[in-house]
């Protein structure tokens, strides 16, 4: 036992663990944020392990079983089946995969671009700042859904195009947020102290300013993940995102609308799935915000 502790101590010092524990307490003291974290974690697990968890993995594609068409929710098919007789639970689990893929890729592309542009703008000031921020303003003037619609209707509407369309607008919020944070950080004394100690531009931007802007960015990313998923589902709903037979959550809601209210499960369960995931991300984001004690413009 004693050897165990010392090994642990060597990896993470007790002071560090104490710090982590205190952050964890601040987070866990709000039941909402814990619920959010649990939702997000279980959805991610579901999505990752979909082939092993989903009851009928073969129902994901263009499988048909018209004998079971529109089966009501039962023990065999907890969410019922759709028109082609495919198990909806399976398709919802796979739909989470696509939703998370969308959120991950959009944020994975948009956040680094936005953060970098914002850092450069906020730290440089002057005409560089003006140029970057006016460009950002131009992009901000376009509503994301409308531009996504335009792009998706020019190209073949697929999930990939939808991701590209949403990502091409999503960086703007991060550029603007980071720019504001960086501009207020750069006049802090420790940044000046670093400059006086002879730190280069990149060092000041990446090692002095960026780490001090991280918590609002992380909170915004978590809150945004839900909104991106919602945007993606909206695009799918109007037929410009995931195309059938791929199991997009928005696509499934759309395909079920024809059969309301008799075959309610076809729309309601995928819709509820979107709701739960977005709610989870929002609750987690709020929890993180309380934990880091930051203000994020909503």
């Amino acid at each position, binding site marked *: 036992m004693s050897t165990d502790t010392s090994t642990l101590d060597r990896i993470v010092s007790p002071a560090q663990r104490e710090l982590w524990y205190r952050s964890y307490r601040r987070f866990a003291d709000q039941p909402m944020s814990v619920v959010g974290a649990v939702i997000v974690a279980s959805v991610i697990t579901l999505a990752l392990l979909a082939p092993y968890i989903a009851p009928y993995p073969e129902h994901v594609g263009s499988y048909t079983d018209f004998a079971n068409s529109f089966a009501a929710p039962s023990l065999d098919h907890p969410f019922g089946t759709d028109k082609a007789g495919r198990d909806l639970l399976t398709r919802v689990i796979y739909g989470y995969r696509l939703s998370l893929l969308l959120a991950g890729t959009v944020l994975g592309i948009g956040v680094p671009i936005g953060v970098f542009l914002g850092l450069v703008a906020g730290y440089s000031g002057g005409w560089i700042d003006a140029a970057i921020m006016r460009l950002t303003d131009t992009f901000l003037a376009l509503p994301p859904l409308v531009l996504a619609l335009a792009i998706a209707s020019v190209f073949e509407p697929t999930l990939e195009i939808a991701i590209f369309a949403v990502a091409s607008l999503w960086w703007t919020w991060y550029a603007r947020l980071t720019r504001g944070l960086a501009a207020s950080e750069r006049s802090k*004394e*420790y940044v000046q102290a670093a400059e006086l*100690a*002879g730190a280069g531009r990149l060092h000041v931007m990446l*090692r002095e300013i960026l780490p*001090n802007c991280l918590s609002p960015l992380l909170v915004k990313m978590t809150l945004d993940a839900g909104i991106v998923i919602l945007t993606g589902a909206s695009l799918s709903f109007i037929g410009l995102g995931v195309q059938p037979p791929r199991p997009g959550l928005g696509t499934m809601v759309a395909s079920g609308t024809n059969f309301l209210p008799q075959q309610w499960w076809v729309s309601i369960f995928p819709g509820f799935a979107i709701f739960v995931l977005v709610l989870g991300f929002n609750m987690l984001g709020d929890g993180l915000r309380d934990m880091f004690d930051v203000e994020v413009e909503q």
Partner: protein
Amino acid sequence: MTVTEPVLDDPILEVSDLSVGFEGFDGYADVVNGVNLSVGRSEIVSIVGETGCGKSVTTKAITGLLDQPPARVSGTVTFDGTDLFSLPQKERVSLNGNGIGMVSQDPMSSLNPVFELGEQLTDTAQFGGKSPSGPLSYVRRRYFGEDRSDAYQRALDTLKQVQMPNPEGAMKSYPNELSGGMCQRALIAQALLNEPDLLIADEPGTALDVTIHDKILSLLSDIIAERNMSILMITHNLGVARELSDRIYIMYGGRIVESGTTTEIFEHPKHPYTQGLLASIPRLSSDSMSDGIDGSVPEYVDPPDGCRFHPRCPYADESCQSQQPPKKAFSKTASTECVRYASDDPGPEPTMTETRRRLNETAISGADST
């Protein structure tokens, strides 16, 4: 005698005719107005003045920390033979740290809150004052090879030199876990890491309580004696200046109003402002409170005409309001800007006793009139 600057044959820092102004909403604030000063090799020079006299702005202009615009900086600053204002950005960066180090006045906010002290100091030791050499070599030096551990060791040694209690523990602490005195020591260590030739100390320790302040100052004077550096110290405390410095510049309203060696300033204060500052040092021997100087530092957007001190000066007359007093030199090092010394036969020199009496009088008459 005529111009006295530079007072030394081979100054390490020479500032001539430095002016700094700020473009603001209510007009142009003329904050530093033609400052000349010099610091010799291994000399300790203090700039003394009230808060708001432009001392910190002067140091920020010297170190290039002011954003232009809104600031407008003119004049020349020569460090070790190089003109700082015409230096390209890259060389300027490498000069900071290697050539000029700075200890700023607020220790608690001058350390990056998200990194351990050791991390920051090691970064300074490893990269401070090196001109940027590209991300690849940065990553290589930062994460691979012996370079990093050498730098860590150097940071630790410097912390020991500044008498940081438990230096190993401090290296692993975040700035918020350190006391103000420890942060100040860490900052001094950071400034010393790359062995600058000139250290600019902007009111070191003022944010701390007096006992720690005193310890920091004695630490500084030990380091000065040991390292043979040049120091430009900013302070509003004449006592500190007297204890540590070789020469003193008295600054008021963005101008150097008097300069001289420490002895010259304290034995024969010439300018009424200097005399007022000296008169306002509390004395244990007298019953009454020490005398202050009435009024406050001028507005910089619309400064008083002529001598900027005249609204507060117990000797002021019409000539003070109309013209900027010429600079009058008394020795190789001492000079002052006051009309009383402008003519060749200025009459009897005012003494400290007389200044005290007059300050008292103005204080009383000022109290009556309100």
